[in-house]
């Protein structure tokens, strides 16, 4: 599989989910089983046990190793997310209460993010007023837009379609309406748009995105 930001995030999500479910069902099983098996009616006399060194060492060491493995999974994915490939397609993202705007290298500005399919897209993000959160769940991208500094993120636009861009850091009254769209278009349609063609609409691109 080609390395994408989606893969980098989803791999660790599913890895952790597998162990989380395993541990969860183990915990619930023993809670319920002991509650039934050792209820006072069935087991009127308790057996005194103060501890068990082997068992306790085991459940210090095992969770530690498991936790460390999760950390490394997260770290590997994150390293990938934080290092945009050289030669990425650059777009500047500006945010303000309560809208996004996208600025292209040639100076073109757009309220929607439109990119050609297959490219690595590097976003440089800033804010004019308060902190916003640039969130593109369809490509597993999130980073805050902070006034006074520039943050960045990148993704590989592998999937055609329209994707929601949302604000995740609460920024005032219309926080929940601070939305935009990402359109990943085939190269020819992208060029038409760049040359001044009409803004794409939801139906324009095949919706295999989400």
């Amino acid at each position, binding site marked *: 599989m080609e390395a994408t930001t989606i893969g980098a*995030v989803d791999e*660790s*999500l599913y890895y*952790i989910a597998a162990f*989380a479910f395993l541990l969860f069902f183990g*915990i*619930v099983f*023993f*809670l319920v089983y*002991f*509650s039934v098996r*050792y*209820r*006072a009616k069935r*087991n*009127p006399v*308790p*057996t005194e*046990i*103060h*501890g*068990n060194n082997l*068992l*306790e060492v085991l*459940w*210090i060491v095992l*969770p530690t190793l498991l*936790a460390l493995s*999760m*950390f490394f*999974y*997260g*770290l590997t*994915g*994150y390293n990938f997310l*934080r290092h945009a490939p050289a030669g990425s397609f650059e777009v500047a993202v500006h945010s303000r209460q309560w809208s996004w705007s996208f600025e292209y290298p040639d100076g073109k500005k757009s309220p929607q993010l439109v990119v050609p399919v297959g490219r690595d897209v590097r976003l440089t993000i800033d804010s004019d*007023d*308060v*902190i916003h*959160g640039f*969130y593109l*769940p*369809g490509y*597993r991208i*999130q980073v*805050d837009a*902070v*006034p*006074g*500094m520039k943050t960045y993120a990148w993704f590989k636009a592998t999937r055609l379609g329209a994707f*929601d861009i*949302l604000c*995740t*850091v*609460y*920024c005032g*009254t219309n*926080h*929940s*309406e601070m939305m935009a769209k990402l359109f990943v278009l085939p190269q020819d349609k992208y060029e038409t748009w760049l040359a001044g063609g009409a803004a794409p609409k939801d139906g324009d691109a095949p919706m295999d995105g989400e």
Partner: protein
Amino acid sequence: MGDTVHEARAPYFAPQGGRRGILSWLTSTNHKRIGILYLSLIGVFFSTAVVLGVLMRVQLQSPSMRLMDARTYNIMFTLHGIIQIFLVVIPGIPTIFGNFALPMLVGANDMAFPRLNLFSWYLFLFGAVLAAVAVFTNGGAPDTGWTFYVPFSLKTSVNVPLATFAVFILGMSSILTGINIVTTVHQLRAPGMTFFKMPLSVWGLYATAWVQILATPIVGITMLLIVVERLFGIGVFDPTKGGDPLLYQHLFWIYSHPAVYIMILPAMGIISDLFPVFSRKNIFGYKMIAFSSLAIASVGSLVWGHHMYVSGQSDTADIIFSLLTFLVAVPSAIKVFNWIATMYKGSIKLEPPFLFALTFVFLFSIGGLTGLFLGALSANVQLHDTYFVVAHFHYIIFGGFGFGIFAALHYWYPKMTGRMYSKTAAVVGWLVTFVGFNVFYFPMFIMGWQGMPRRYYSYLPKFNELQLLSSVGSYVLAAGVAIILVNLLYNAKRGAKAPDNPWGGATLEWTLPSPPPLENWEEPPTVTKGPYDYSGMEEKR
């Protein structure tokens, strides 16, 4: 500690020394009375915040709902957060049970500084009044979220300084309570009670008190800086003057992450007391649980940056904070395993307090395991500031603190009131809250996973069904909470008389009458056995 017959000493809540009525409560430095004073205030605040929460869920029932406008909704989640965090969950267990139960648990007659104790209650009241005033005056309530993130909080409604100052005052109250608890544990333990003969609830409160003392000043100064920034414009958090908004977030979370442990550690301690009592056997791995509390308190002070993975802080910082975050998960896991192991070969009675304790473990486990997703750097990118986080911390805070305090209330209720609640009603209340809780919050994990950001007044149509389900769950949960509260309130005066030791506990408070007299012991008790040693107690059960 044999079967001494208690000569009739008046219960602690009877009129004493010529003072009666409300005034005798407001001037009393007695630890049990102050505990009840806190309980009354916190009960009112909790109910208020639950109502706010339900109103928010009504608004979110459908994306086109217009119960309130967006600004009102933003104020509501801000108030819900401020009340629940600063007025309920952080003070909750240390003030209610740290006062009511702690001196009895260590065999003392009162806290180390009784007058300071009453003073901190008044500070708490004062902070709460300030917060309430901030809601109704001077342009209206703050709409910043309980985190008061700059620079938004520097620009929005005019009452932010008053609200943040209220938080500062509440922090002072919390610090004084912490000082009282640490000193009490060091100085006032009964003869024979070594540190390793203390009940684990005392260990929990003790570790918590250190966090209160060491972390709260940082949020105190941060809140003061917001006030000063708002009033004079000093510029330290204002990017237009060279200030760094991320520095605010660091300072805020240096306290507010440890604050999560202020919320959960004492609850864990109480749960550790309940598992042995209702399994009739010693806790599995006493020292491990005691030390894991200290481990959580210390390592937990170094993980604040995991709230800021996507904030723009350096990647190196992200990596260090993520590593520490995974390490702090381990002591919590140890506690869960030890609790469950305590049940092994026990003789278990599913009394109401224990049902709540078991539910605590169930919900806390879900909260803890979902925390692993958020701790992992890449997974967090998708889940950060979404409903996944909202669900996660409600599983920890409501599932942990909330059910911990429900367990504690049902456990010490006979000691507090001298009466017993209806056990049937308690079980019904438990079942309804348990079902409502999971229907309410579990869908939020799914919505967050699918990209539903938090603090949204409205939402995309793809979330319609799950949002509705979640709202229905919230109504069920609120009904369950109401059943629990009514049962406890109604029976405080009308319930059947409770025996001195209804659960067969081996800790010191159960050697006192129910309710205890104003002065717990006439002669200091001598401790010769551990807190979970039930040998020779079978016949009294």
